[in-house]
């Protein structure tokens, strides 16, 4: 193998090129196997005729000079995805579509090709297109445009590819200008002339990449491409004809945006947990309204409710000229998510039209995230540390939540209200008892937390006021002072 690569083979012409220019002499298999020049091509295994790919390439000459051509191409990809699931971007101004898979549904080929061309025409875009069994061939044909035959080039059979490519000007390969100049000075301006040159010579002079390009173009080597994946985010703006000064009027304008957003989500069977509304003013930075939802949703009514709640409380700094609705990243709607069967529940129960996340969202949209919370108890002896607020609410279905919060085995009952800070009782215990206080239960000694610096050493009592109020008081053991810590409401 090594020695073979080292010896330049003058007769080592491109087999397919031979086949074209001497059509009756089929390239025999052994010749293909001798093909070791720069790198071994990977011909398809003879025994298994795999269905070849078919590529439709479209070049937009105008986009060559456009600054943000990438964004435009991405948008064009979305149009192209109506025809095939595999669309690939070829910067700066071309798209490649795999259309073999679409032929059954949208074929025949001429029909599909014409439909694709019509799509660009509808968008008022100047486009050059071609179809070929390999990506590069299709691209080169498209770049060459219709100048070759007057009609778009459509090559379906890989065997006829080299012949069709023979007349292609080399400029359409977009290779390095220096290389093209060298080739021109050698008298090589057409693809056919290049294909007749020895492979090893090309590899030596112009680099193995050029040989590889030719292999790919002729369909001898596969060149995997990356498919375009649409950006999964909803973003749409709407501009007003007149400036809007009151937030109330924004709601009307917002409705179609939300409807489209909900539609967008439904089509993708996804939901969002965050949204952002940007209100643009004539000058100054845009007002951003961010909102979070308690759970992933795609429900239009929930989105509307939350946004309108926010808008109602919004003070507009300046009149609004336009707005933009931007969704957060899409998340799949899981089967367990609560609104998957929201509609069903509504019809069955008649009035179960709401869900808990929905309610929480509405409350939070109005009062802020901090104002709506849950509570949990913690296994801890110090009363003030035995609970905490929970802002990350979980909406698990009933039953899956077992009683994790082991009901504390405190001897004494705990009060329903706990003061934020223990309040120092002004009177001395003797005075308290004289005033009609009764110590009903106690003492319960709580001595804990010495290790983290906020240790307590207290004796707790349940005291009853003469008039019936029951309080939770304690005596600090060191200072011997009495504090009120809770109320048995």
């Amino acid at each position, binding site marked *: 193998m090594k020695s073979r690569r080292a010896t330049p083979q003058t007769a080592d012409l491109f087999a397919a090129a031979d086949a074209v220019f001497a059509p009756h002499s089929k390239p025999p298999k052994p010749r293909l196997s001798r093909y070791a020049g720069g790198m071994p091509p990977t011909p398809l295994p003879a025994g298994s005729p795999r269905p070849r790919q078919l590529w439709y390439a479209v070049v937009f000459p105008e986009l060559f000079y456009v600054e943000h051509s990438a964004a435009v191409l991405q948008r064009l990809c979305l149009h192209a995805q109506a025809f095939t699931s595999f669309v690939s971007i070829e910067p700066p101004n071309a798209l490649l579509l795999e259309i073999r898979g679409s032929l059954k549904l949208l074929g025949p080929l001429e029909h599909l090709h014409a439909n694709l061309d019509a799509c660009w025409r509808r968008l008022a875009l100047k486009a050059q297109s071609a179809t070929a069994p390999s990506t590069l061939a299709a691209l080169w044909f498209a770049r060459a445009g219709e100048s070759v035959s007057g009609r778009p080039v459509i090559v379906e059979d890989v065997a006829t590819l080299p012949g069709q490519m023979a007349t292609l000007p080399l400029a359409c390969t977009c290779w390095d200008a220096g290389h093209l100049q060298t080739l021109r000075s050698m008298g090589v301006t057409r693809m056919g002339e290049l294909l007749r040159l020895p492979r090893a010579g090309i590899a030596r002079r112009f680099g193995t990449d050029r040989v590889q390009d030719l292999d790919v173009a002729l369909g001898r080597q596969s060149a995997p491409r990356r498919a375009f994946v649409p950006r999964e985010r909803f973003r749409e703006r709407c501009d007003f004809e007149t400036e809007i000064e009151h937030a109330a009027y924004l709601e009307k304008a917002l409705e179609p945006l939300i409807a489209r957003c909900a539609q967008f989500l439904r089509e993708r069977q996804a939901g969002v947990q965050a949204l952002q509304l940007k209100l643009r003013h004539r000058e100054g930075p845009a007002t951003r309204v961010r909102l979070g939802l308690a759970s992933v949703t795609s429900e239009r009514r929930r989105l509307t409710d939350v946004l309108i709640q926010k808008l109602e409380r919004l003070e507009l700094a300046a009149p609004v000229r336009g707005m933009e609705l931007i969704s957060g990243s899409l998340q799949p709607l899981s089967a367990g998510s609560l609104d998957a069967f929201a509609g069903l529940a509504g019809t069955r*129960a*008649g009035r179960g039209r709401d869900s*808990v996340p929905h*309610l929480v969202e509405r409350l939070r949209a109005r009062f802020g995230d901090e104002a709506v919370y849950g509570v949990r108890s913690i296994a801890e002896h110090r009363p003030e540390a035995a609970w905490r607020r929970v802002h990350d609410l979980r909406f698990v279905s009933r039953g899956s939540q077992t009683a994790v919060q082991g*009901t504390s085995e405190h001897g004494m009952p705990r009060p329903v209200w706990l003061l934020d800070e223990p309040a120092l009782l002004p009177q001395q215990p003797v005075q308290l008892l004289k005033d009609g206080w009764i110590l009903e239960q106690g003492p319960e000694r709580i001595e804990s937390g010495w290790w983290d610096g906020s240790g307590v050493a207290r004796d707790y009592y349940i005291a009853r006021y003469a008039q*019936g109020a029951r309080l939770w008081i304690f005596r600090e053991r060191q200072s011997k002072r009495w504090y009120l810590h809770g*109320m048995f409401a």
Partner: protein
Amino acid sequence: MPRDLSSLADILADARVWKLKDASAAPTRPVWSTGNSALDARLPGGGWPTASLIEVLLDQTGLGEVQLFLPALVECQRNIGPGRSDDAPWLVWIAPPHEPYAPALAQQGIELGRLLVVRPPSATEALWAAEQALGSGVCAAVLLWLKGSDDRWLRRLKLAAEAGGALGVLFRPERHRFESSPATLRLMMTQGEQEARLDLLKVQGGRPGPVDLGSP
């Protein structure tokens, strides 16, 4: 007109006709036991009515006013009525005067994972929140603490409670005692000689008067 008077059954079926018998008889809607037999006996149906508004008047906390409702709250969290969706038994506490102490509630059997505390910035906002929670149909009970509010809002709360099938409990200062109220039940808690006193001010389908709670 003659068509309207065709039969007694038709007249009775008319929603505009209020039937006295039904009002005094035991209500068909379910009730939650108060956990106190003396109080149960005084309430029509033997417990707190669901899907209604209860008003508690008191000036001082610590009288065991929440304790009156805790057994019912535990019960309604455990039981889901027929036809209710799976996520029904939530409790919402709006503007409580102090922090609800989680260990105490857990001790009493409240499922803390389904308790929501809301702290609205003002009384009007609190009423709005209560109306939303009551009418949402996902809450078993909504407890609301207010310094004061007008009759119009209470009527809205009552309608929301009936629509959402939730028990609404409103705690208000005693000075509202002589105002009219659309609540189904009105209680007043005051300090007594030894224990707190409970007075039933208004009982739809029952008899008002003081209740001896006895030993709880």
